């Protein structure tokens, strides 16, 4: 078991593509950290760099305060679980798990005990003599886990280990993996593009985003799942975490006596909030408001902030998601920088979560209000959160 520190990590491929830049964070001993982000955000590259399978151009990688930047993968004492499991197809399940131990010149009886213990833990004892080709996806996934845990490594690296499983099995394995991690207490770095996986499994979650030059950083925020949800540091994190995603609306702020008036750009909708120090500095400018779907409440028409037709409603049983359009320019969270003179056209589709009983009929007006206290505010140029 070990702690792991990424210190200013950067990776540029020979063709000039910047995959990773300026990434710094630490994983504490025994901690389960999830790297999450869309494709191309460098999460797998970071993981492969931790494994030593990918070299880095800048920065250092520490394990237990020892610099392992230049250490070969075989000398790092880490175990990796690959997306497609990478089992040795010509070896039995037993040999797949024993292979790593055999390379350590461990006595045969000790290997046997370790393999059988791991197989027991993962409910694989019946399949020990089978080849991977004769196993189901879930079983292969468990063998891949078994191969990692028999070695009692300093750290686990997992590269989307559940993405090849069907939805039901994925949910089940998610729980089992989390339990396994708690039981073994091994430092784990886990890569996924699935934010539900990230939120449910990680002690902390690192949200990454693609970079286009060496000045940016892939790492947007690393925090506990709840903090990411409640206090996203910028538009990207706010938009990435949460399902359905947070709604973004452009508003024009104007200062009034003791309060701020926010007028939704392109509409007649406006509301007032108590003046706050940081937000007041944006008076006279446009800012972006973030509204989580559950912050909407169905209300009498007289109190409604939004009162729009609902063309689409998705009933999930416990909740209903209703979608409606406002005549306000949409917010593209991926390039917050160049949205200053966004063409003032198009519709912004918002989503609200409401109790199923209040689901409107198609194209009926639905009066909604918003808990103004909980709104998220973002700088439209930098995309960073505006907080007191």
């Amino acid at each position: 078991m070990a702690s792991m520190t990424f210190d200013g990590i950067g990776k540029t491929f020979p063709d000039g593509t910047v995959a990773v830049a300026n990434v710094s964070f630490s994983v504490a001993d025994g901690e389960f950290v999830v790297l999450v982000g869309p494709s191309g955000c460098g999460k797998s590259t970071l993981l492969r760099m931790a494994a030593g399978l990918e070299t880095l151009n800048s920065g250092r990688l520490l394990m237990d305060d020892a610099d392992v930047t230049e250490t070969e993968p075989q000398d790092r004492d880490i175990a990796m679980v690959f997306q497609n499991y990478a089992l040795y197809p010509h070896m039995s399940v037993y040999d797949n798990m024993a292979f790593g131990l055999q390379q350590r010149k461990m006595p045969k009886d000790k290997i046997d005990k370790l393999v059988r213990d791991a197989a027991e833990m993962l409910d694989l004892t019946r399949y020990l003599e089978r080849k991977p080709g004769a196993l189901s996806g879930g079983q292969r996934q468990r063998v891949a886990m078994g191969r990692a845990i028999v070695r009692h490594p300093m750290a686990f690296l997992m590269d989307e280990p559940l993405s090849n499983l069907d939805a039901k099995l994925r949910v089940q394995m998610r729980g089992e993996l989390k339990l396994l991690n708690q039981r073994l207490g091994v430092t784990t770095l886990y890569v996924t593009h699935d934010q539900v996986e990230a939120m449910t499994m990680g002690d902390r979650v690192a949200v990454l985003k693609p970079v286009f030059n060496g000045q940016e950083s892939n790492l947007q925020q690393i925090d506990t799942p709840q903090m990411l949800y409640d206090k996203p540091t910028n538009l990207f994190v706010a938009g990435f975490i949460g399902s359905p995603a947070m709604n973004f609306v452009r508003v024009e702020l104007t200062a009034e006596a003791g309060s701020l008036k926010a007028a939704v750009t392109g509409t007649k909708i406006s509301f007032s909030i108590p003046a706050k120090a940081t937000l007041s500095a944006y008076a006279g400018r446009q800012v972006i408001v973030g509204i989580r779907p559950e912050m909407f409440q169905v209300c009498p028409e007289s109190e409604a902030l939004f009162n729009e037709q609902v063309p689409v409603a998705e009933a999930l049983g416990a909740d209903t998601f209703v979608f409606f359009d406002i005549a306000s320019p949409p917010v593209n969270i991926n390039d917050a920088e160049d949205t200053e003179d966004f063409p003032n056209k198009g519709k912004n589709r918002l989503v609200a979560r409401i109790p199923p009983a209040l689901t409107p009929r198609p194209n009926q007006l639905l009066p909604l209000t918003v808990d103004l206290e909980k709104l998220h505010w973002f700088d439209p140029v930098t995309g960073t959160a505006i907080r007191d």
Partner: protein
Amino acid sequence: MHTTIVRSPRALGPARKSFIRRNLPYLLIAPSVVMLLALIAYPLLFALRSSFYFWNLQIGPEPLQFVGFENYVQAFNAFDFRAALTNTLILSILGTALEFIFGLAIALILLKALPGMNVVRALLILPTTIAPIVVGFLFRYLYDPGGGLLSWVLQSLWLPVPAEGILGSPSTALAAILFVDIWQWTPFFAIVLYASLLAVPDEILEAARLDRASAWTILMRIKLPLIKRTAIIIVMLRFMQIFNTFDTVLVLTRGGPGTSTRTLGYSLYEQGLVNFNIGLVSAMTWITVLIVNVIVALYVFFAFRNEEW
């Protein structure tokens, strides 16, 4: 109003339909079977019959006399049989083994994606595309004691070159033929093994590295087992090909000096197409066929054992 009942095509002649459907696979494979029978089974059986007759085209166009196993006895007792068999086995076993090892080494280097590898890969296949006869002539000049390039290189390196030439000395002639075969056919192994190594997923090799396997262990326990099927088949093919070597021998040494480079293939050629001793050469052919098949059957048995196909 009247109704005409038209039998659907499906209902038409159910018996004939099902006959075709049932036997379609056999019908489709029949032409190949006929060709195989005509081109392989017939000559083999014809040779089997001939092998029991005294039949020499220099004496007469027809078999002269039934002689039983006399031709077989004569073949085993011929002055060159044992030498030819030994030389053939040396060539085929050593040739296949060395070509496999060198080919594997080249394939592993090709995988390294070093600069210029594309050119090397394209050039590599060239020797294999040249006809063996042409290669034979090429090497006759290279081995020439009076100014042949290879002789000159060896001499320049102070290596002993026999006075009678590399091909003229019984001690070096067979090695010289082996070298030609290795030169021509190692690229074949390299290309085929390279292609099959490319199919080994990177993740598996990475997993092995993380399992602390050394490069040697990865080669022996991961890469080779994963390309085993391809390797087994090309080794078998190549072994059978070398076993029948005769063209390079014909051009380079004509089996000499003495019997030092005589192969079964060359002896067959000499008895059949030089001496026209059809009865004897038929017996020799059958002996060769039996030897090759016994060796290949043993090889297949051991190589394919424990293999799920």
